[in-house]
């Protein structure tokens, strides 16, 4: 199973009183007999990678292993440079609940209420133990560009590692871009894209003017009005100077057009990220010199229904088929976006901002199936984002001297059955648990037949019910009563898998049918789980077996 083997026997001393974190035995690792993909197109079969103190120190077919190296037997596995994410909020805490006082003059709100806080640094919100960060890391991402939460101008982006002992240890580079979204403030100015576009232009022009006057003042201050500090405008100065890009989240086609309209009007360096609908304007993107990070989120595939025979199709069915065909074509545009960028010779990275990490490997496979070559996909995860973010000297490939950011998967990464086994972030090893999909312990057998009293905790209070389950020749039957039910309702789809109980029933809610689903883990005479009430959400539910009389 695990190829973990201590090459050196080290006696360790445990402190009896304190629970101190153990210092790792060694910070030298050797990944042996692994297929090394140094960069797209550069491969060493069955070689060794040695990392030491956070750096890659040797890469090759036969390499002398340092005596202190912890050996990771990665026979027939594949190692790649750790992936780089162009835009995400993984690892970023939300700001604490601000003052919710109503703004007196919605047309003239304080900047923070208007979503205008460009001076904020994401550094203040970093969280190295964020679950989202762990999820990204587990699929191979080792570096990410992260931004603060917010609306129009939430603050500055930073480049971070997807792991680290502290937030300082996470930080690679601070204030890498000024982040912005074309998002309104809610109920104050600027509320809509109309206000947002005008406000952006005004802020930029005001910043350019303030910066220009500040340098006039600095050269000779006598006799000149003192410029008043404005932290909102100051945040724009490096952008006005063309030393810092604006990182714009622009998912949809019209958003991208509007962002480009600002760039044309104001002339700032631009990175567009989380792009979903970029294919109609690849030429405009190419000629503008803007940097691109495409979204790893894709629309769901249309479920294919059985084709009906021509004679039995009604006009409605014919129309439905035409609409479905159109929808499939539309979805294909999204999956083939990356391939089109590759064809047009526009370099790009990827952004996980709107994607769920568990969907990313399968989405990458869909993108590859739609025409992006595997080499190009790997480049978009490693060498290209390193280039776009100015990190090529130390990240993006497996070469001596580069940072020890690596991802080891048991099969080629883009293979359907591949699983990531190890990830190195800054030379720190993370072993990824390879869990099987089953949530239940299949060895445990539970008895569910009988009468149960249930309590569901909803925002409206606790709802009680009485559940009766009876074992049948095949499966189970049962009823639920009490709560909102005028009469006992029959249970549908009752199933038990290991110790997990599932059942469904339908309520009549104001004349509309409402589907209720319960999934709970059974433990002896009790169960605990979740009840989902249609679109109203999920709530905790507990059941206790009625004592047998």
């Amino acid at each position: 199973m695990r190829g973990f083997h201590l090459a050196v026997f080290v006696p360790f001393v445990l402190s009896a009183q304190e629970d101190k974190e153990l210092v790792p035995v060694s910070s030298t690792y050797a990944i042996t007999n692994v297929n090394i993909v140094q960069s797209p197109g550069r491969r060493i079969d069955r070689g060794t990678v040695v990392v030491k103190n956070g750096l890659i120190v040797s890469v090759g077919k036969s390499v002398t292993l340092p005596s202190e190296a912890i050996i990771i037997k990665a026979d027939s596995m594949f190692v790649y440079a750790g992936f780089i994410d162009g835009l995400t909020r993984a690892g970023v805490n939300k700001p604490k609940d601000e003052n919710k006082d109503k703004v007196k003059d919605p047309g003239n709100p304080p900047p923070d209420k208007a979503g205008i806080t460009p001076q904020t640094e994401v550094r203040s919100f970093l969280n190295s133990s964020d679950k989202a960060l762990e999820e990204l890391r587990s699929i191979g991402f080792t570096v990410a560009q992260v931004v603060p939460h917010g609306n129009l101008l939430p603050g500055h982006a930073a480049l971070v590692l997807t792991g680290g002992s502290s937030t300082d240890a996470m930080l690679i580079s601070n204030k890498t871009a000024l982040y912005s979204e074309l998002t309104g403030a809610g109920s104050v100015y600027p509320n809509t894209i109309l206000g947002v576009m005008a406000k952006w232009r005004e802020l930029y022009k005001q910043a350019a003017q303030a910066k220009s006057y500040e340098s006039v003042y600095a050269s000779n201050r006598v006799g000149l009005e003192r410029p008043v500090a404005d932290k909102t405008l100051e945040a724009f100065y490096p952008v006005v100077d063309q030393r810092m890009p604006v990182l714009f989240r622009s998912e949809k086609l019209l958003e991208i057009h509007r962002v480009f309209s600002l760039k044309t009007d104001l002339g700032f360096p631009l990175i567009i990220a989380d792009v979903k609908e970029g294919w109609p304007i690849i030429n405009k993107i190419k000629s503008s010199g803007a940097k691109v990070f495409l979204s790893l989120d894709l629309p769901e595939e249309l479920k294919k229904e059985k084709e009906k025979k021509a004679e039995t199709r009604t006009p409605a069915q014919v129309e439905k088929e035409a609409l479905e065909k159109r929808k499939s074509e539309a979805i294909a545009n999204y999956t083939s976006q990356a391939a089109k960028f590759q064809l047009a010779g526009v370099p790009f990275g990827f952004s996980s901002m709107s994607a769920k990490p568990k969907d990313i490997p399968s989405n990458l496979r869909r993108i590859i199936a739609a025409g992006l070559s595997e080499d190009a996909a790997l480049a978009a995860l490693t060498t290209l984002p390193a280039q776009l973010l100015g990190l090529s000297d130390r990240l993006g490939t497996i070469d001596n001297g580069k940072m020890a950011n690596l991802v080891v998967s048991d099969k080629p990464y883009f293979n359907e059955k591949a699983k990531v086994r190890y990830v190195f972030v800054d030379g720190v090893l993370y072993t990824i648990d390879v869990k099987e999909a089953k949530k239940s312990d299949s060895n445990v057998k539970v008895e569910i037949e009988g009468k149960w009293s249930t309590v569901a905790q909803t925002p409206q209070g606790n709802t009680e019910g009485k559940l009766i389950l009876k074992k049948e020749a095949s499966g189970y039957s049962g009823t639920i009563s009490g709560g909102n039910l005028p009469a006992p309702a029959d249970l549908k789809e009752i199933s038990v898998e290991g110790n997990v109980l599932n059942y469904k029933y339908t309520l009549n809610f104001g004349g509309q049918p409402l589907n209720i689903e319960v999934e709970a883990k059974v433990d002896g005479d009790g169960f605990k789980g979740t009840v989902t009430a249609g679109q109203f959400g999920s709530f905790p539910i507990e059941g206790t077996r009625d004592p047998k009389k």
Partner: protein
Amino acid sequence: MLIFLSSMLTNTWSQVERGSVLIKNGTVLTITKGILESTDVLVKDGKISQIGKNIAVPAGVKVIDATGLYVMPGIIDAHSHIALDVINENTNAITPEVSTADVINPFQVIIYRALAGGCTVSHALHGSANSIGGQSITLKHRYGTYDPEMMKMEGAPRTIKFALGENPTSHGRRDGLQPQTRMGVEFVIRAAFTEAKAYDEKWNTYNKNKLVKGFRGAPPAYSYRYETLGDILKGKIILHCHSYRADEINMMLNVCKDLGIKNLVFQHTNEGFKVAPELAAGGAMASVFSDWWQYKLEVYFSTAYNAAILVRNGVVTSINSDSPDLIRHLYHEAGKTQKYGGLSDEEALSLITINPAKQLGIENRVGSIEVGKDGDLVIFKNHPLSIYGVPQITLVDGIVRFDREKDPADMRIFADPKDALDVTLHKSGHDNDNCMQGTEFLFGSFDSDLD
């Protein structure tokens, strides 16, 4: 900044799709130069290049046979909100700095439907939530483009939306701010322009002093808002003012006279008939509904004779839609003025062609069929003012953008994969009455009460 804008202008000009076509043998309703029977109209590279009989077909130019059909200029809707993603930035009473040019959506199918109604140009207005609303954009219905820039009518003058009456005051009452009454609306407008004038003076002083050798000083604060108000005072922006009642129309005429604002068009103006002579004397124009009123108190006192009365008093009048429904049959709306007011054919058609063109400052480009104007044309079966009139083909810049013979079922340009499948053909036949579809829940509760 100006250099920037003019270079952008030439860019759009060169990229706009333009076509050539020869429309043969139709009854040409020129609007400005009478009716020409059995006449050809040649459009070359988007411009009308020749009007006459038996024009030779240039090589490679498509021919449309309009024998027995009517050819009129593309219809212009001076009050519309189609093709916009947002209509109102309603968080402040004064927002002249925003512009609907920033929120154009070229994918809305309503653009195609407007073309099916012969409408080739629409004035995409900001809403009426604010006393001083946002700048607006004149659009050409170039349906099929993916680029919102291509929808803009290049070279069209700037316009802006003001609003009087119940709409802006209701927002004031909601927020506890000015304006809450019609008096407040007048004050808000006057105060804004007073501040804009002060802003302008500060900048004029600074710009003058800057040229003096050895000058050292701080520039005044930059305000996009006051810059725009200043442009209105300098006559660079046509002011379109949403209004209904005669008292507020009078008020606005006085305000504009005091401020020297000459380019003024009143929108809706349901009580315009009461102050028609004053409107004419003030050089103001009016864009009205054919017969839409009593949907709120300030629209109570209205008449279907409004347009005709305004025309007879010398006010340049247009009929608009302010509606994704009416925009599809503005030719019939115009026809109503023949029953209510006895306008002639030419007068009635002017209400939807050359007059709205004047109100948008584009009368040198569109609104009539004359050599040199844009190839924006509609071919009608039966006279447009006849109840039997139906647009057959609509051209914009010489490109056919609508053809009744080639009208596919799915005209979406950009299909959104998240859109639900909207199947319009339900079960045909009458075994199942679909009239009450979706209302079952109304009857469910009755059942349980009867228990």
